[in-house]
C-alpha cells in the first residue's frame, strides 16, 4: 500500500523525522487559507500515488496568495499518469543549500532491507547510480541486528558532513529514525528525495514516499482505512472478497486461481488475438461464495463480451468453483458467454455439477488452449450480435 506524501509526513513527524510545516487542502480556498496560516512563500504539491509529478507541473513554489490560488486550481484538476490528484499539500518553502537522497527498501536480491544514500538528490536516483556509482552508499541491513552505527558513519562520510558538526548529528539522527520508522511500520519502501540541508545545517525531509507491506496490515489497524482510501467501488468489493484484481483494457473477463496461472492465461489470450479485461486471482482454496463474488466483480465492466474461468485445482477444489458459478448465475444477470476450464482437484465432480446445472451461456473447455479459442470466438460473436441490436 502506497501512502500519499502528506500521510507519510505525518508518520515522519511522529517518528522525529524533520519535515516542513504543512496542511492539506481539497479546494483552492482551503489552500489560500493554509498559506495564510503558514506564511509565504509556500510550495503547493499534488498528492497523488505516482512519481513524476514535478515534471508534470504538480509542484509549484508560490510567493503570493494569488499564486497559491492559481496553483491549487490548476493542480487539483490534474491527472498525473492516469491518476487524479486527490488533494494538495501546502507547505512552507524551505531554504535549500544542498539536496541529498535517502531510502530504505526491501531488496529481493538481498532478501531483506537495504539502506541507500546518495550525496546528490532531487533527481532520478538511477541516473546518478549510472553516472557516478561511488556517489551511492548501499548497505544491506540485517533485520535481526538493525541499523549499525558504522553504517550511519558510512552515510556521513559519503555526505561529506563532519560527524560532530550540527549537520552531522542531525543527519545521523535522521538515518536512525528512518530505519526505526521503516521497521516499526512494516514498510517495504521509505524514500526521502530530496533530503535537504539548509544553509544553517538543518536537515529536512522535503518529500516522503512510504509503501507499507499489505501482508502486515493486521499489525497496523490504523492503516486499514488508508488502504481502502482511493479505491473505487469495484476495487473495494474485490479487496473485501480477498481477490487480487487489476482492471485491464480488453473485452474478455479473466478469472482463475493463482497469479501465475492467470497471467499465463492472459498471455495465451493475447497470442490468440484476444484482450483481457482484467486480472482476477481467486487465490488458493477459494470457497463458492468467493467465486460468485469474483464473477460479479468481473462482470461489472460493461465492456466485457465474454468470460474465461481457468482453474487448476491444488488447494482449490473444482466442485467449489462450479457451485460458485451456479450461485453467481442465481444472483446476477449473466448475459455474456462464460467459458470454463476445470482441471486438478475434484475436476470431474466440478464438470458434472456444471453439466447438470446446464447454465445458459456456459461452455466447458477441456484445456486452456481450447478455452482460449472458444472465448475469443465467443467475444467476437457477441460483439456482432450487440452491434446488430
Amino acid at each position, binding site marked *: 500500500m502506497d501512502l500519499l506524501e502528506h500521510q507519510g509526513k505525518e508518520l515522519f513527524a511522529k517518528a522525529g523525522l524533520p519535515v516542513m510545516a504543512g496542511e492539506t487542502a481539497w479546494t483552492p480556498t482551503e489552500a489560500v487559507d493554509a498559506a495564510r496560516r503558514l506564511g509565504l512563500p509556500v510550495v503547493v504539491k499534488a498528492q497523488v500515488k505516482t512519481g513524476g509529478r514535478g515534471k508534470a507541473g504538480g509542484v509549484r513554489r508560490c510567493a503570493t496568495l494569488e499564486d497559491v490560488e492559481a496553483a491549487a486550481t490548476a493542480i487539483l484538476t490534474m491527472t498525473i499518469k492516469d491518476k487524479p490528484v486527490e488533494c494538495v499539500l501546502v507547505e512552507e518553502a524551505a531554504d535549500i543549500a544542498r539536496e541529498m537522497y535517502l531510502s530504505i527498501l*526491501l531488496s*529481493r*536480491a538481498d*532478501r*531483506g*532491507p537495504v539502506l541507500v544514500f546518495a550525496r546528490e538528490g532531487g533527481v532520478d536516483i538511477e541516473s546518478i547510480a549510472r553516472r557516478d556509482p561511488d556517489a551511492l552508499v548501499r548497505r544491506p541491513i*540485517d*533485520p*535481526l541486528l538493525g541499523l549499525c552505527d558504522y553504517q550511519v558513519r558510512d552515510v556521513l562520510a559519503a555526505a561529506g558532513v563532519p560527524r560532530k558538526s550540527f549537520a552531522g548529528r542531525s543527519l545521523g539522527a535522521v538515518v536512525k529514525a528512518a530505519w526505526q520508522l521503516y*521497521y516499526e511500520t*512494516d514498510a*517495504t519502501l521509505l524514500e526521502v528525495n530530496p533530503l535537504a540541508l539548509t544553509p544553517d545545517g538543518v536537515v529536512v525531509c522535503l518529500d516522503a514516499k512510504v509503501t507499507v*507491506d*499489505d*501482508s*502486515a496490515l*493486521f*499489525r497496523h489497524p490504523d492503516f486499514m482505512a488508508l488502504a481502502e482510501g482511493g479505491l473505487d467501488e469495484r476495487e473495494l468489493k474485490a479487496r473485501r472478497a480477498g481477490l*487480487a484484481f*487489476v482492471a*485491464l483494457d480488453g473485452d474478455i473477463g479473466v478469472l*482463475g*486461481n*493463482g*497469479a*501465475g*496461472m*492467470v*497471467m*499465463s492465461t*492472459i*498471455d*495465451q*489470450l*493475447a*497470442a490468440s488475438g484476444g484482450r*483481457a479485461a482484467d*486480472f482476477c*486471482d481467486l*487465490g*488458493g*482454496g477459494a470457497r463458492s461464495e468467493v467465486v460468485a463474488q469474483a464473477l460479479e466483480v468481473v462482470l461489472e465492466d460493461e465492456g466485457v463480451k465474454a468470460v474465461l474461468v481457468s482453474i*487448476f*485445482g*491444488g*488447494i482449490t477444489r473444482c466442485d467449489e468453483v462450479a457451485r460458485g458459478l451456479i450461485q453467481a448465475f442465481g444472483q446476477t444477470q449473466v448475459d455474456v458467454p462464460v467459458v470454463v476450464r476445470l*482441471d*486438478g*482437484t475434484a475436476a470431474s465432480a466440478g464438470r458434472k455439477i456444471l453439466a447438470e446445472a446446464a447454465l445458459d451461456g456456459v461452455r466447458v473447455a477441456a*484445456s*486452456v*488452449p481450447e478455452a482460449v479459442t472458444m472465448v475469443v470466438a465467443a467475444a467476437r460473436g457477441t460483439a456482432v450480435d450487440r452491434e446488430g441490436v
Partner: protein
Amino acid sequence: MAILVDETTRVLVQGVTGREGAFHAARMRAAGTNVVAGTSPGRAGQEVAGVPVFDTVADAVVHTGAEVSVVFVPSGFARDAMIESADAGIRLIVCVTEDIPARDMAEVISHLERRDTLLIGPNGPGIVTPRRCNVGIMPAEVCMPGAVGVVSRSGTLTYEVVSALTDTGIGQSTVIGMGGDPVHGLGFVDCLAYYQQDPETEAVVLIGEIGGNDEETAAAFIKKKVTKPVVAFLAGFAAPPGKRMGHAGAISEGGAGTAADKKKALEAAGIPVAKAPSEVIPLLKKSMEKAEKKRNG
C-alpha cells in the same frame, strides 16, 4: 536420491490440528510420504491423520527423528514456527503459508542462515519427489517419477506444466515450487545447482514470471555452471508494467522485471523459452535430444 527429499525423509507437520494441516497431512501420507509427527502447542498426546501430535518441534524431533518440517500455521504465527523448527535442528523447512509479512520473512531468513537450515517458500506448494515424498500441497496424482527436475515461482503453473509432462510420459525427478514472495528461501540458482549434481536428473524445466531478476540471475548461473539441458517457461508477457499481478512477487516496473527482458536474458544464455505451458514439451524434447546427440559424440 532426486533432490532434498525421498522415501527415507522423516516429515513433521507444523499446525497439524488446523483444517489445512490435517487435510494435507493425510494427503501427504497417501502420496507415500513418511510423515512421522505433527505439532500444535497444547495438543500433545492426540493423534491426527494417523500421526502423533507434540507440543513442540523439539519434542517431535527427539521422539520421531523428524528432519523436514512443513508449516501450515496462519501468517501471523509463521515466523515463530519457522524459528522454532530451525532451533530444533530441522534441516529443511517447507512453508506453505501465504501473506507472511516481508519483515518477518527477512528475519527468518537471517536466522535460518545462521542455523544452516534450508527453506522452501513461503507462499508456495512445496516439494515433491514423485511416489516417494510429497511435502506441501501439490496434487501428487499429476506427478510421475522420471528424470526431469522442475523449479517454479508459481504454484498453479507448476501443476499445469507437471501435468503436461506426465500426460506426455515425461516423468520428474523432483518438483519444487519456491513460492511467489519477494523474500523467500531456496531460489532458482540453489535448485539448479542441486539438479546439476543429481544423477537422477537429466534436464530441468524452470518456470518464472514477471518481477525481480531471479530469472536473469538464473540465466547467468546456467551459462557458467549447468551442463544439463534447461528449458524455461515464463508468465506475464501481456502484463502492463507497474501493476501488481496477484501476489507480492509479480510486478514489473518500467523496463525491469518484464517477461520480455527475462526471455532475452534466458535466450542469450542458450535457454529456449516457452510462452505457454503447451510449448514446454516440444522445447524440452528438442533440448534433450540435442544433449543426447552431444553425449553420443
